[in-house]
């Protein structure tokens, strides 16, 4: 049944997504890909490129322009034997499906005491930084991490993208899978050609350090890393954590790291108010209060809508802003 897996081993993040899809489409006949332009066009970011040719129009389905329809119909498919992998063209266009996700995708298992479940994956490119038109650049992951019944995953590397997407597809519960557009083609990495998973719920320690814990995800991991490198030169040792799963996040790893370093800087693209950073602040407050040597700091988007792209570089956290915050935290 298995059709040949892409042999390429150096991949970009978006290629790793395609590879994960191809892997699961080959392994599991109940998987389907649905979305706007995912078929013939291979997706506006080419994440589903070639899949319709390989798996047919029946498995890779171009749908009408109708996010509530896509998600709502996929619920029906999911409770009746299929595993829909839905593409929402941009996270900023997921809002029409918000009701279906909020009142059904996330609640059906609870409401039927497990008799029905919704093993569905919703993939969505997100984030600013590629000069995309308005609304295309939203980073509103917290609207979903706050939704009991849903998991939220966000890879920062090609390796993790493949492993986490396969894990998400195999997960018995619905998973929102966020793909940073800015990271789609920013670098390549060796990715195994076989099927593998990266465990949902586990953060990745990007680099160990002793003075301050940096927590980031998606495109912000690289921003944090850059800041950490410069900080190192200035004698500040940063532990950089890539959160990878945004819900349920890795409480133990975060707690242990901040207990060790006594300081934390959280970096995210979303606005400060309501951002996931606040949940992380609470976690650290709850688990490392007596270890804290400075207030927990955040570097985030501002409390304004993501601007049109001429101003987006002012909106997105930069290594400079992160560095300044590290410095302030260490000097507190």
């Amino acid at each position: 049944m298995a059709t040949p897996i892409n042999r390429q081993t150096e991949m970009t993040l978006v290629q790793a997504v395609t590879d994960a899809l191809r892997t699961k489409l080959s392994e599991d006949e109940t998987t389907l890909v649905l979305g706007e332009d995912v078929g013939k066009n291979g997706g506006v970011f080419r994440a589903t490129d070639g899949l319709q040719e390989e798996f047919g129009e029946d498995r890779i389905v171009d749908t009408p322009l109708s996010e509530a329809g896509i998600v709502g119909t996929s619920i029906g498919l999911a409770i009746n034997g299929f595993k829909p992998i839905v593409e929402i063209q941009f996270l900023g266009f997921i809002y029409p499906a918000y009701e279906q996700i909020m009142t059904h995708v996330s609640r059906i298992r609870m409401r039927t005491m497990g008799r029905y479940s919704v093993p569905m994956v919703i993939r969505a490119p997100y984030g600013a930084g590629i000069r995309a038109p308005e609304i295309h650049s939203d980073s509103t992951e917290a609207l979903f991490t706050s939704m009991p019944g849903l998991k939220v995953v966000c890879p920062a590397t090609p390796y993790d993208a493949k492993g986490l997407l396969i894990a998400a597809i195999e997960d018995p519960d619905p998973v929102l899978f966020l793909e940073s557009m800015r990271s789609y083609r920013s670098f390549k990495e060796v990715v195994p050609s076989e099927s593998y998973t990266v465990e949902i719920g586990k953060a990745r320690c990007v680099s160990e350090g002793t003075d301050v814990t940096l927590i980031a995800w998606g495109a912000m991991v690289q921003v944090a890393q850059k800041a950490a490198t410069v900080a190192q030169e200035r004698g500040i040792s940063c532990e950089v954590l890539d959160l990878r799963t945004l819900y349920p996040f890795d409480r133990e790893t975060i707690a242990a790291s901040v207990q060790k370093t006594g300081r934390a800087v959280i970096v995210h693209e979303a606005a400060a108010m309501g951002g996931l950073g606040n949940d992380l602040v609470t976690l650290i407050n709850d688990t490392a209060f007596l270890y804290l040597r400075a207030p927990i700091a955040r570097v985030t988007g501002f409390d304004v809508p993501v601007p049109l792209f001429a101003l987006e570089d002012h909106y997105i956290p930069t290594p400079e802003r992160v560095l300044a915050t590290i410095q302030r935290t260490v000097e507190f």
Partner: protein
Amino acid sequence: MEQHFPIQRIIDEEGRLIDASKEHDLTKELALTLYEQMHRIRTFDRKAINLQRQGRLGTYAPFEGQEAAQVGSALALSDQDWLFPTYRDHGATLTFGADMVRTLLYWNGRVEGCVPSEKHIFPPAVPIATQIPHAVGAAWAEKRKGTKNVAVAYFGDGATSEGDFHEGMNFASVFQAPVILFNQNNQFAISVPIEKQMHSETIAQKAIAYGMPSVRIDGNDAFAVYFTMQAAVERARSGGGPTLIEAVTWRFGAHTTADDPTKYRDQARSRDRVDPLDRLEQFLKHQGDFDETWMQQLQERHQAEVEAAVTAMEQFKAPDVNDLFDHTYATLPVDVQQQKEAYLLARGK
């Protein structure tokens, strides 16, 4: 448009056959089965209202007046079909095979009331129209599997105003899903009369927007409902795609027990309406098939069944606080697990 979608009837309001072509289909057996089920769910419905008044049930949505629509449609389904109801369609779900005790539990805020029997009955959709895409998806899944099973979405006149109605209709038609969109047009969405809900004269005509067949029927004529539904189900099973059915009906009572219909309509309008059960009773009488003893037995049987269900509901095990946590995910995330343990611990002392 009304002339393009005339209300189709098989018997008139006095229970007289008006569609002669159907004469041989209206068997005694069918008529008695329809009547029996309608009587059964009415017994349930009235009891539920009573229980609510006595504080033994939460807010309840009655369906009196819509029995022909609900029973006629549900009886046309087969065991493997899928039913996606609203909060007012437990007449249909009970007819299709939902458990009566669980139906009562639902109205007491018990999650056990959402868990379907062996039949595929989805928990009632509370957010209006959201179940329509679900039914389309479940039907599409059956088509993909190559079965002959269909799905039915029940929904009201008000539901047609929501985006989910539109998006579901469009998907149903584009993917030719074997789904029946069964609309009970009871002419009110809580207090809002249909003239304020839509500018179209009929709901049936909305199917034209999707190139979908549709039909407008007298929803209080159990035969018209049954045969129309049967034809739509047959078409869906044989690959003919979706159908929209507009069953014109009327709710006699309040929107829910929390609602006061006299605020927005003259309840005399309800009293003037022909009761769908009376209408079928008249038909049986015209045919000479109505038997007082049978009726007596029916009453006793249904009374007993409903009473037994009420007793079972009231003796049902107490709500289990574990259920607050345990079904959120297949495996509970650490934080929810911790919250649960902390809460149980605190309660323990």
